[in-house]
């Protein structure tokens, strides 16, 4: 494809505007997400939390902390039963996460393969100012590393900013920010996406119809994500938003930078979640200290929208989480966990520090869901989308990356069950994905091509 590194200014502008807003969104979201969600995802990284049914909330770090801080709880169920329940539902939770991740990836890959727009290079984000159109390999590498450093520092700054905001209780600001970002995402990006898809399939659509469609889509989306809505609709919206975001990243990140950024994000995720001074961790701890999971819920819901960049608001897991939350409402103390309260909050709009006594009387056996940050969705999709867009082995590479990411997700969930606290969901999956991408593209492809040309089967 033709690489227009720097198009005319006008073209660059919209990108910048969009992306600048986005970038702003991203960093804060993750960190705050985490805090809010209590461990859900560490900023940009989704932390998987698996809530077990019943009083034990093993997976949430918040939960764990909560219990440690003497929050009442624990129902009479014995620990063993908890564990069994956890692991028994473990497979189900994994699948509950597999499905949305798979859907998101499918949407992204389908779009990449069919709509030409997302693989054309029309400029770059202002966050990646160094172009990769240089003649020498060393120069290109250097540029991509510099791009990565800039991007990561932007993210870190945003995350810290978000944590500070949260610490000093500037809730309104965060709330407004989230609403704004989700607004932009829902309307602007959808408009562009729809325009490109229609162009590809040569379908004409007049402006009034377009306006109507987008308005409805956006309005319902805003309500669904920030307020209440049917679970599946909410999940669908979150998936779509993640896919849109991933597509934007795929389009605007230059190649080598994208891979280096993916790697760096995993490392950052690991550090931010596990280091004691990491912003995400601080967020979680602050939320726990204040014992107000709910508040985050306010933001949480809006945050869900957040999706921009780094991840995180609960994604599809929201659905299950919410269910869980409702179920958990019946007097279990687990609600303390931010996870719980979050959902409840979003349902109840109750910013009080204690869990609202819900009137939901869900069946106790309601499944606990697992939460995965939206940022995780986005980066998984970016990986698979990039593989689909740039690999010459085409579908084999894409398939290999897909399986690798799913397996990474499985392993992360397993670790979650073992450690029972918030974990970054990015590192393992992204590492597997990257390893498989590069190895499949360079090693397996010639092998398979040769086999196929002789029609040999192994």
């Amino acid at each position: 494809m033709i690489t227009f590194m720097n198009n005319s200014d006008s073209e660059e502008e919209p990108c910048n505007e969009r992306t600048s807003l986005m970038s702003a969104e991203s960093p804060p979201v993750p960190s705050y997400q985490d805090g809010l969600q209590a461990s859900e995802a560490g900023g940009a990284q989704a932390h998987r939390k698996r809530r077990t049914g019943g009083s034990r909330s093993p997976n949430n770090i918040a939960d764990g902390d909560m219990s440690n801080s003497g929050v009442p709880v624990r129902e009479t169920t014995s620990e063993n039963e908890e564990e069994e329940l956890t692991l028994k539902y473990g497979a189900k939770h994994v699948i509950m996460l597999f499905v949305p991740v798979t859907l998101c990836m499918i949407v992204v890959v389908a779009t990449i393969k069919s709509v030409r727009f997302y693989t054309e290079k029309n400029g770059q984000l202002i966050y990646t100012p160094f172009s990769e159109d240089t003649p020498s390999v060393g120069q290109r590498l250097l540029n991509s590393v510099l791009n990565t450093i800039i991007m990561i520092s932007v993210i870190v700054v945003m995350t810290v900013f978000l944590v500070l905001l949260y610490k000093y209780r500037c809730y309104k600001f965060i709330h407004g920010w989230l609403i704004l970002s989700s607004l932009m995402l829902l309307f602007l990006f959808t408009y562009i996406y729809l325009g490109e898809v229609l162009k590809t399939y040569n379908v004409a659509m007049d402006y009034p119809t377009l306006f109507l469609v987008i308005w409805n889509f956006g309005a319902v989306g805003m309500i669904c994500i920030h307020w209440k809505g049917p679970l599946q609709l909410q999940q669908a919206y979150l998936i779509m938003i993640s896919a849109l975001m991933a597509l934007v990243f795929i389009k605007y990140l230059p190649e080598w930078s994208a891979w280096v950024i993916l790697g760096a994000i995993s490392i950052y995720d690991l550090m931010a979640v596990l280091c004691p001074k990491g912003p995400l961790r601080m967020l979680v701890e602050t939320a726990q200290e204040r014992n107000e999971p709910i508040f985050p819920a306010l933001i949480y819901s809006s945050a869900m929208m957040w999706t921009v960049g780094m991840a995180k608001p609960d994604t599809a897991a929201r659905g299950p989480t919410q269910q869980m939350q409702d179920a958990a409402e019946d007097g279990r103390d687990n609600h303390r966990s931010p996870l719980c309260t979050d959902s409840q909050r979003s349902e109840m709009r109750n910013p009080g520090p204690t869990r609202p006594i819900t009137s939901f009387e869900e069946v106790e056996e309601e499944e606990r869901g697992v939460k995965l940050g939206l940022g995780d969705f986005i980066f998984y999709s970016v990986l698979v989308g990039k593989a689909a867009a740039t690999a010459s082995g085409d579908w084999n590479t894409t398939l290999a990356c897909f399986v690798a990411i799913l397996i990474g997700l499985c392993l992360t969930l397993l670790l979650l069950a073992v450690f029972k606290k918030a974990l970054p969901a990015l590192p393992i999956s992204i590492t597997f994905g990257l390893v498989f991408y590069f190895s499949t593209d360079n090693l397996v492809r010639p092998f398979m091509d040769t086999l196929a040309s002789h029609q040999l089967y192994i």
Partner: protein
Amino acid sequence: PALGLFLFTIARDPLRIIILIAGAFFWLVSLLLSSLIWFIAVKASDPRDEPLQKGLLIFGVMFSVLLQEAFRFLYYKLLRKAIEGLVALSEDGCSPISIQQMAYVAGVGFGLMSGAFSMINLLADSLGPGTVGIHGDSQLYFLTSAFMTMVLIFLHTFWGILFFHGCEHRRWWEIAAVVVMHLAVSGSTFCNPLYVGSLVPSYLLMAAAATWAYLLSGGSAQNLRRFLLCK
């Protein structure tokens, strides 16, 4: 057909899906390693020497088959451990999934992955413009590829069952038989494009493996008759 198998038997139970994906992953890793070996061999040799390249390819294929079986064995070990874990965790002391089911699912996982890798680029290309066999190759390329892939997927499924059964009961000859069959099938593809030489034996082997696996899983001619007559 493989997709049908997946939908009807595996998609219901989440545990099976996980085992399936893990099986696919193991196959992928084995493919990776074998292509690494082949790649190194090719790079180290003379690219202009045709027979040598062909020989290397054959060597690569055989090596890959052996690696696949080795990984199947590793996967079996992993699943054994997992079953023990599941049993320990379950409430009534027996695992929610039996080793035979696991064998079946693992076989399907292997098969699906190998089938996908063999077919998917073909399918993508078949959507585009072009004529099959314009350079004097067989015109039935797509058809035969499709059939071969299908038979391979089924074979992997049956081999999974046989292999695990052999490991369970320590019957080494069963395992050896699976390896030999796999080698035979791959070897028979060497006579492509003389399709008679490859498709027919493969189907015969598949029928044999199917009956063997069926008998091992506890079926019998009686069961079959009852099922067919819907009693």
